[in-house]
């Protein structure tokens, strides 16, 4: 892999679980950020086997908006939009009712994270389960804030991150 793609930090959840995963003091020395995450929730989202993976930037809880496309094995496809939300979609996570030891796979991309413009966030994720209701999500998000991004905080719609959930933050330089 090109040396312009650098793993900044990796975290793996231990046996006690964790309610949030945070990357702090992110250096401004890269052009873009990419997070690859594999997660599972300890919670049970009613009637499905997945839940929302959420992202909060710089500890800020305002001015997020999203356009989400999704496909669910047994339930069809659709879209959702959110405005004035307090977090952005970062994909989906398996929940505690998904097949044992299955996790989601999510890629979150944030271009020009240190710029003085509003920030765009895109994510591409899928959950895994030996059942009909796994979900695939494609999300385009906007954080209407001109501050450089220095921290990322991931949370789940329900429950805590289960043991072995993991996330790696990559920094990408244009040259």
């Amino acid at each position, binding site marked *: 892999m090109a040396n312009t793609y650098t793993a900044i930090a990796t*975290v793996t959840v231990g046996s006690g679980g*964790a309610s949030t*995963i945070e990357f702090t*003091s992110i250096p401004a020395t890269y052009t873009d950020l990419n997070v690859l995450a594999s997660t599972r929730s300890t919670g049970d989202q009613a009637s499905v086997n997945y839940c929302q993976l959420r992202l909060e930037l710089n500890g800020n809880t305002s001015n997020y908006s999203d356009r989400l496309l999704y496909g669910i094995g047994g339930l069809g496809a659709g879209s959702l939009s*959110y405005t004035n939300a307090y977090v952005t979609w970062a994909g989906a996570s398996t929940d505690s009712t998904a097949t044992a030891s299955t996790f989601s796979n999510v890629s979150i991309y944030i271009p020009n994270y240190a710029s003085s413009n509003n920030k765009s966030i895109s994510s591409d994720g899928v959950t895994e389960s030996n059942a009909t209701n796994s979900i695939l999500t494609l999300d385009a998000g906007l954080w209407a804030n001109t501050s450089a991004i220095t921290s990322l905080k991931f949370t789940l*719609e329900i429950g805590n991150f289960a043991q072995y959930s993991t996330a790696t933050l990559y920094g990408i330089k244009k040259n």
Partner: protein
Amino acid sequence: MPTKLIVDCSTGVTTEVELTAEEVAQREADAVAFAEIKAAEEAAAQAKADAKASAQAKLAALGLTPDEIAALN
């Protein structure tokens, strides 16, 4: 008490910290707020679908064929 994992990217050090009571309360409030947003968005989408179905039914009652109604979309 739930914990949070914090990775300091300047040092690479990961620490596990218990949530404060305020953070737990905020988390619960956030969950309620998101559920409200989600419900409102879904209700709006359902209302739009219902209105479309109602309009199509009225057009059919006026004698338009399904093809003619589809041509209006």
